[in-house]
């Protein structure tokens, strides 16, 4: 998984969800379970990933668990990219 992908995802999360500039988001920082990203907002995160990486995810794949950390999001995106060949 590329550093570019990590940076893009983290940048999106900072831009869209984080108001406290001192907040640090690492690969394992809980996003949904910590309340940083509301579960209602996952649809916009899903849309960003689909748009940015030209992938399609089902609602089942885009679960709260799969979106809970940057690491898990990257793994899901990479899986979808691999499936597309």
């Amino acid at each position, binding site marked *: 998984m590329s550093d570019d992908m990590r940076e893009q995802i983290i940048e999106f999360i900072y831009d*869209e969800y984080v108001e406290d500039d001192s907040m640090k988001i690492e690969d394992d920082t809980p996003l949904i*379970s910590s309340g940083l990203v509301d579960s209602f907002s996952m649809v*916009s995160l899903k849309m960003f990933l689909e*748009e940015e990486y030209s992938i399609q995810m089902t609602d089942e794949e885009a679960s*709260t668990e799969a979106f809970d950390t940057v690491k898990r999001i990257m793994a899901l995106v990479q899986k979808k990219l691999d499936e597309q060949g």
Partner: protein
Amino acid sequence: MTQPMPAQSNIGDHVARRADFDWSQAREILGWPADQHNIGWYCTDRICEQGLGDKLALIWESSDGQTVKRFTYDELRQLANAYAKFFTEDLGLKPGDVCAVFLERIPELYIGILGGLKAGIVMLPMFSAFGEEALAARVGPSGAKAILTQRKLCFRVRKIREQVPDLQHVIIAEPGDLEMQDGEVHFDLAVAQPLGEFAAYPVTEESRSLLHYTSGTTGQPKGAQHVHGSLPQQALTTLWALDVRQDDIYWCTADPGWVTGVSYGVIGPWSLGITQLVMECGFIVDRWYKALQEYGVTMWYSAPTAIRLLMKEGVDKVKEYDLSKLRHLASVGEPLNPEAVVWSEQAYGIPFYDTWWQTETGAIQICNLPGMEIKAGSMGLPFPGVTATVLTDQFEPITEPGVSGQLALRPPWPSMFREYYKEPSKYESKFKNGWYLTGDRAYIDEEGYYWFKGRDDDVINTGGHLVGPFEIESALLEHEAVAESAAVAKPDDEMMEVVKAFVALKPGFEPSRKLEMQIMNFIRKKLSPLAMPQEIEFVDKLPKTRSGKIMRRLLRAKEWGEEIGDTSTLEDD
């Protein structure tokens, strides 16, 4: 399906209760004094006076699951006292002043509300995901002088400070190294000194207690004003409808930013001395099941959206946990579909008992009581002491079973809202021919059971939360690309309804997936994730009446596959 009468349900024979109960008996049944009405006092001092000071009042688990805090009733009392003193002596707030609450589900939220109520301060709870516009639309008109918030959320409060001149004090919990600005002060449980005595302010039954803002079809949200006299109904419905017992571990999953999270996540259980669980995290299947198991939850009050999401995970997931302590389940927020009732019996061995009420009613009005025959999908029967009906378009009661009309309640009842704050004409418009109009449509079957049919207006019920189309449309128009817009409810398997927006773009803007995402995020930040359209359809123009009013009902009918009805007022192409 017929449920066996629980051997020791609190209500006992619900038919007899309906026949002989009226609200004047509530205090006597509860064993409450006639001369004390302060909700904060009932939830703390009175429980301790009964010798239950050492009993657990709150079990709280942090969002990461790493921290669990437990508070006894005496700790709750002393910390609520500390908040009451801080509000009055340190900040100079007076009884009747409004204090907004903008916190995630941390202990300060619950204890702060109790402290404020104890001091006679009017508490205004708000959903922590509200964006700056939604925040300003509530804090501003309420005239709040103070707001309880926390570091993570205070940045949104800072953005609206200039719009809300009445706001003098921003009370920040867990500020860490945050540099405080003018009017900001640090106060939370880390610095609060437990206080042995604080004389509860001698409120009357009609003293203002909580201000809950709720959305309507037109205009900005309205503040449903509640009073301390709501308490007997909140307590008795907790006792009879939710059937709580003294040895229960009770979990109401609602956020106190909404009325359920206060009426049944603060007031109801604590006024009865019940131990309750609060999970800071939102809905996560495994965390929820783990919590039910680890804390031994016995009474669980949740929402259809959550139940439907749990259904998706299946019965096998349930079997991974020991949920054998669950004794009673109830649901609120939107109609509980029959499949969910049947599934819960398969999954948990007991059904969810649906309850119906709304922000304005303050407490449960229609419900399935223990011992009642549950008709899966029905709202149930009116709670003892409640008179309900469905009305024709001329506001006359419908006597024929199975005919839909507007659901209405006969006022007064103790927990009824007393006004829309500073909006008397809107309040008056909710009453016709001696009935309170709920805005919901329902019918009554031959056995008197109520069946929900939908809203009587354009308000969108998403996951049990009402969202007003006007608010969304107003915010959409602030986006640089939007020329005109309409927000309607779209059916959703899990949320019942979600927001869908129809948007006509200004010249120079082209529809695209990227623009759709930008507009969605724009609304999420301005209002809340709940108000964010889950879908945007770009259109050339919106259907309007000849007088230029957007015909939302046509757009809604299209989404629901319904007949579009009379279009004679539609403007010509």
